[in-house]
């Protein structure tokens, strides 16, 4: 992370950054294509790609008028070589904007034909489509698209707010020859940039340029002055195509990019106006907002809700019971509308009176109101959902948050509440929210906390009776906890036999499986985080061959092979939550068979102990075997360099769970 401060001392530091020489930089004129690029038939370094970005750029600039003040302009330019027909979708362009606060104009597009000549896309072929209340799409497609053609277009995107310019990504899923970000930033605006991308060209200088507003700093108004702008050129070249990898999270963070955020405004006539200062200032500002702090702290915003819920909460004696009661009340009386948010859309009372449907912040804001009113101190917890970027703690950047939860402490231990599905117990946020860290908007003590949830556990006890023909009846008793319990309850609710808990995993391995029965085992004391379940199935867990019977005792695999498929990774491995699975099978052998060979007991352990697996087979009584197989994952985040060790461990565990036992007919 670095700060771009357009003040001289910092600028000097930036100017010494390594940079390509001027003659290495492409001279690109819109609408004109070099003969070499026209003749190009393959992307250097990637002979199989179907398209190649020859050039793309974003230029950030500012405008000013006396009525509206400053605004942003972003000029985009893109030039792509089409190398195979599979890339022709590139020629169907859709540009989207929200006309409530932005616009797109000045669209120009050309196609450069491989045999010579260039054709414009006529303005009449650019179609505007309304997508909703204020969302607009501009669509156009290029004529005469063929292999070897180059499509090129540019447009102007205007934004009313100068707070957060659009993020600019240098790399794409096709190779890029040259990508650049340029900006002319008036000295009144101080931006920070996020990300640690090392540029091939990294130049920042000061350039004199006229720009409003006008300030009378001298005795006479001498008209619009030229002022020194921060003049930025950041560029990257020869970027390979991006690739997806399984078990990744926040992959976007690893794409080279520019993300700016306004930090301060300082006009010559006034002092510094801080857009954001530190987390303390930020929490104070948030807490003073209607749609944040006031909605859950000012009783006039939740009085009706409280009146309705009070009898339920009054019956709860302890803080924990109050927490459970408030959580249950909100999950039963509110509905999530499918949208996430860090700000409420309306006061809790209005949401409650209006069918109880709201975004994720609305539901959790109602929960905050009930908890605090009931005397259980609770605070908003802001998170960035998984795959929307890793949390940025160094600066109080609010835009990184897209979800609001509830934080409280019970018996000195943190509890995370995320009201939505009634079946998901208190203390288990939706798994999408588990992005490692969250910010507690506690007015007295704002802070970052680890989003750690209890390990999810599953224990399956299988009683298997195997026939000499391999046909097997199996009675599976299982206890699931936390996310496993929630997932199982959801699966059971579907009512579909093939989707019942554990069945899909069994079917993947035994497609001929017959489900005899399945049911939830209800206990006298309902523990929301626990799910007890029984399943009876018939399957062929053994294969008879001559005098041998090869038995697959682990009918329920605990790991799948996707993580171990590749040799190397570039992205970290990121699981949402820790887990532990136990599988204990009692295997009754067919009459006349004895165990000839079984794997030796084994215990596998990652170097740091974060992943542990064990496996053992023993003959408890003659004709009966017991197989115990455990896998435990305690860490959720592994760096890409740790992958080879994790991969090998995975492979060994998978080998264990797939290795059969050898029975032999007794003589």
């Amino acid at each position, binding site marked *: 992370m670095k700060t771009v401060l357009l003040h001289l001392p910092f600028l000097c530091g930036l100017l010494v950054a390594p940079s390509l020489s001027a003659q290495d930089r492409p001279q690109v004129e819109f609408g004109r294509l070099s003969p070499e690029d026209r003749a190009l038939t393959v992307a250097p370094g990637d002979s199989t790609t*179907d398209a190649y970005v020859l050039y793309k750029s974003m230029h950030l600039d500012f405008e000013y008028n006396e009525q509206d003040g400053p605004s942003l302009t972003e000029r985009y330019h893109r030039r792509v070589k089409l190398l195979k027909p599979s890339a022709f979708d590139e020629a169907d362009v859709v540009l989207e904007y929200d006309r409530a606060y932005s616009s797109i104009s000045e669209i120009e597009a050309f196609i450069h034909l491989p045999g010579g000549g260039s054709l414009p896309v006529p303005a009449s072929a650019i179609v505007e489509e309304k997508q909703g209340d204020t969302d607009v799409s501009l669509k156009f497609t290029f004529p005469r698209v063929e292999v070897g053609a180059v499509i090129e277009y540019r447009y102007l995107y205007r934004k009313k707010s100068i707070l957060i310019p659009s993020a600019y990504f240098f790399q794409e899923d096709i190779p890029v020859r040259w990508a650049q970000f340029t900006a002319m930033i008036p000295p009144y605006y101080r931006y920070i940039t996020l990300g640690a991308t090392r540029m091939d060209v990294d130049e920042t200088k000061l350039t004199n340029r006229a720009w409003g507003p006008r300030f009378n700093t001298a005795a006479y108004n001498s008209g619009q002055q030229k002022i020194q702008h921060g003049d930025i050129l950041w560029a990257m070249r020869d970027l390979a*195509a991006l690739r997806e990898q399984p078990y990744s999270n926040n992959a976007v963070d690893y794409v080279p990019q520019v993300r700016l955020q306004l930090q301060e405004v300082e006009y010559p006539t006034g002092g510094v106006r801080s857009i954001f200062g530190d987390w303390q200032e930020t929490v104070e500002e948030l807490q003073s907002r209607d749609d944040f702090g006031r909605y859950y702290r000012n009783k006039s915003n939740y009085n009706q809700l409280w009146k309705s819920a009070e009898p339920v909460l009054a019956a709860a004696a302890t803080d924990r019971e109050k927490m459970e009661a408030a959580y249950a009340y909100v999950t039963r009386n509110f509905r999530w509308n499918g949208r996430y948010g860090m700000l409420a859309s309306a006061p809790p009372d209005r949401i409650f009176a209006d069918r109880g449907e709201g975004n994720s912040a609305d539901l959790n804001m109602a929960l905050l109101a009930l908890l605090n009113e009931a005397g259980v101190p609770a605070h908003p917890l802001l998170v960035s959902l998984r795959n929307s970027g890793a949390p940025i703690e160094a600066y109080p950047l609010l835009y990184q948050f897209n979800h609001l939860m509830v934080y409280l402490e019970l018996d000195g231990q943190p509890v995370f509440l995320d009201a939505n599905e009634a079946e998901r117990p208190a203390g288990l946020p939706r798994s999408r929210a588990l992005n490692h860290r969250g910010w507690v908007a506690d007015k007295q003590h704002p802070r970052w906390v680890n989003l750690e949830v209890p390990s999810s556990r599953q224990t399956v006890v299988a009683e298997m009776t195997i026939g000499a023909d391999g046909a097997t009846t199996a009675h599976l008793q299982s206890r699931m906890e936390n996310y496993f319990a929630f997932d199982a309850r959801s699966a059971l609710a*579907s009512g579909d036999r093939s989707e019942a808990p554990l069945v899909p995993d069994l079917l993947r391995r035994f*497609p001929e499986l017959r489900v005899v029965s399945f049911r939830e085992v209800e206990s006298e004391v309902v523990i929301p985080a626990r799910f007890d379940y029984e399943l009876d199935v018939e399957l062929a867990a053994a294969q008879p061959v001559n005098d041998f019977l090869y038995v697959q005792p682990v009918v329920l695999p605990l790991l799948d092979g996707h993580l171990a498929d590749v040799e190397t990774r570039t992205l970290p491995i990121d699981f949402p939550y820790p887990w532990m699975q136990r599988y204990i099978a009692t295997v009754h052998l067919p009459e006349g068979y004895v165990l000839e060979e079984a794997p030796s007991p084994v215990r596998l352990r990652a170097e740091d102990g974060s992943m542990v697996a064990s496996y053992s087979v023993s003959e408890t009584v003659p004709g009966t075997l017991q197989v115990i197989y455990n896998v435990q994952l305690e860490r959720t985040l592994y760096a890409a360099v740790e992958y080879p060790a994790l991969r090998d461990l995975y492979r060994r565990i998978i*080998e264990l769970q797939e290795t059969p036992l050898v029975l032999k007919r007794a003589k």
Partner: protein
Amino acid sequence: MIRCSLLFTLLLLAGTRVQGQVPEALRALAAPDSLRANANSVVVSYDYEYTATSDRTALLRYRHVVTLLNAKDYSEKVYDFYTDDTKITTFEVATYDAFGRETFKARKSDITDRPHSDETSFLDDRWVKYTKAPCSSFPCTIVMEVEKKLSDFAATTGFPHWAPVDRDQSLIEANLTVHMPTGSDLLYEEHLVEGATITSAGDGTTYHWKLENLAAQSAEPLAPSPSETLPYVRTEPAAFRIDGYAGSYRSWQDFGKFMASIMAGRDELPAPLAVEVRETVAGAANEREKIDLLYHLLQERCRYVSIQLGIGGWQPFSAAYVEENRFGDCKALSNYMGAMLREVGIASYPVLIRWDEEPYYSPHESFASSSFNHVVLYVPSQDMYLECTSKYAPTGYLGEDKQDRNVLWITPEGGKLSRTPALIPSEHGHIRTVSLALQDNDQVAFSQQAEYFGAAQELFRSLGAHIGARQDQLDWLHRNAFLPDVSGSEYRYAVASDRPEVSIAYSTVLNNRVRKLGSRRFFSLNPNPIDWIPERDDDRRLPVRYESSRFYVDTVQVTYPAGLEIESGLAGEPIEYTHAAGEYRAEMQVHDGDIYWIRTLKLKPVNLPANEYQGFYQFFADVAKAEHLQLVFRERRTK
């Protein structure tokens, strides 16, 4: 008894609405058990009224009341579609809980209008109006009431195709009413519905159909289209007018004439293209070769872009427009191709077709209607169909989801119903050879050569058409279980341009395929098992419709180190299974110490009565079992 008591309680709770009759939100609960058995939902009432006000305008009203008994078929969004020539004047949605209490009534702010995106159309004038109908508990009743004013294209295509009940759904009552103005005739087709009641008055004729008390038909896998087993009524106007073009549905011939009229005059080739076309075929030895040359010219020159605006849903862009832009939709590209063929003296017809795995309605001679969604071209002299939207299909290759169905040829004499060819199993499948060499270090050298042909090659041809980069192709093949990993040393992907064949070769070394247990090695012989098994169904009610037509040949060669010997897994006798849906044969041979497993599997389309489902299931269960072969090696014992 319990149900009656519950109902009584509910009726009391429903208050004044009980007086006189059962409130509609409670009718499903008051219905006999037979109407709730096997049902996820109950159509309480579905009143659909279509009033043709002229040969180009109409008014549509419907009121749909459905009680969801559980969440299985619950879809939160309630919607209807419209186009630029439609005006929705009423759109009301409400929900009721199990006590008959209104829990939701859509306000203006709850209703959203959005362009309809079907992911294939780049530009489309269809819109969808929708709202969420929240059901937080079940039973839950959703009431939807819509009124639309239609004109031109919307009015003609809007004539009711009324199928008021779906599978897993019962029906208490439904009514379809169509009013035709004096002088306008209504054409209709009834299926499992009592005949229409027809009444005439001064201003026209009214047709009315009614359905009552239908028990739910369970949805079952591999069942025929619901249109074959559930009631429907389809209607069309005898005469209509769209954007000044007059047409009729009285016969397929008439409808074809109308289609020809809106296509007329759009096949004039620009002069330079006409010259190029003639030059292209100048050296061709015969008509087949000319077609091939021009089809490739089309593929190189043009691409598919779907633009569906108004009558443009049926009327193609002109050949000149396509030539200028080098793009078009199915109609435009077929028209362009037809124009090129005409330029060299080859006659062709546009063909209306339903491109679907299984069409909901199968067009047939006795009722002309437009349930098509695609256009291809037919060359009668060669008995050849041309799919003009594909940049990569071989000449004359139509595609599996367009074969074996009734289509409408637009001939110079008008429409003519015809049928596309059925698939022959031997022409669709693969020949695949895999070599597996076990190494001393328990790695496996894997090498595979596969030739996919006919319908079985479509997926792989499409892969190259949509995914260009080698690594992306490998990722896709691995993700879909066609290759064992992505890090192989050799990958060759070749598409035959002149015939429906794709070959894929791949070599790699696998680290995790041998399970070691003491002196034993367990090894799955077949890396590509064909082990699909239909769902178990012990109480099958509906006939079985199995559509696959394939012929697969797989050969696996296994070599292993001298230090190992086979303990078990070698099959002495061939394994054979036969059923109306397929023939399976696998045998194992040993030559020079290497193991060869050769399997052929023929899959055949078949219609079976419900009581033969178990045998059908068992055939595939047997095949799946036979596909999962395990070889067990052990370290060779020295004597």
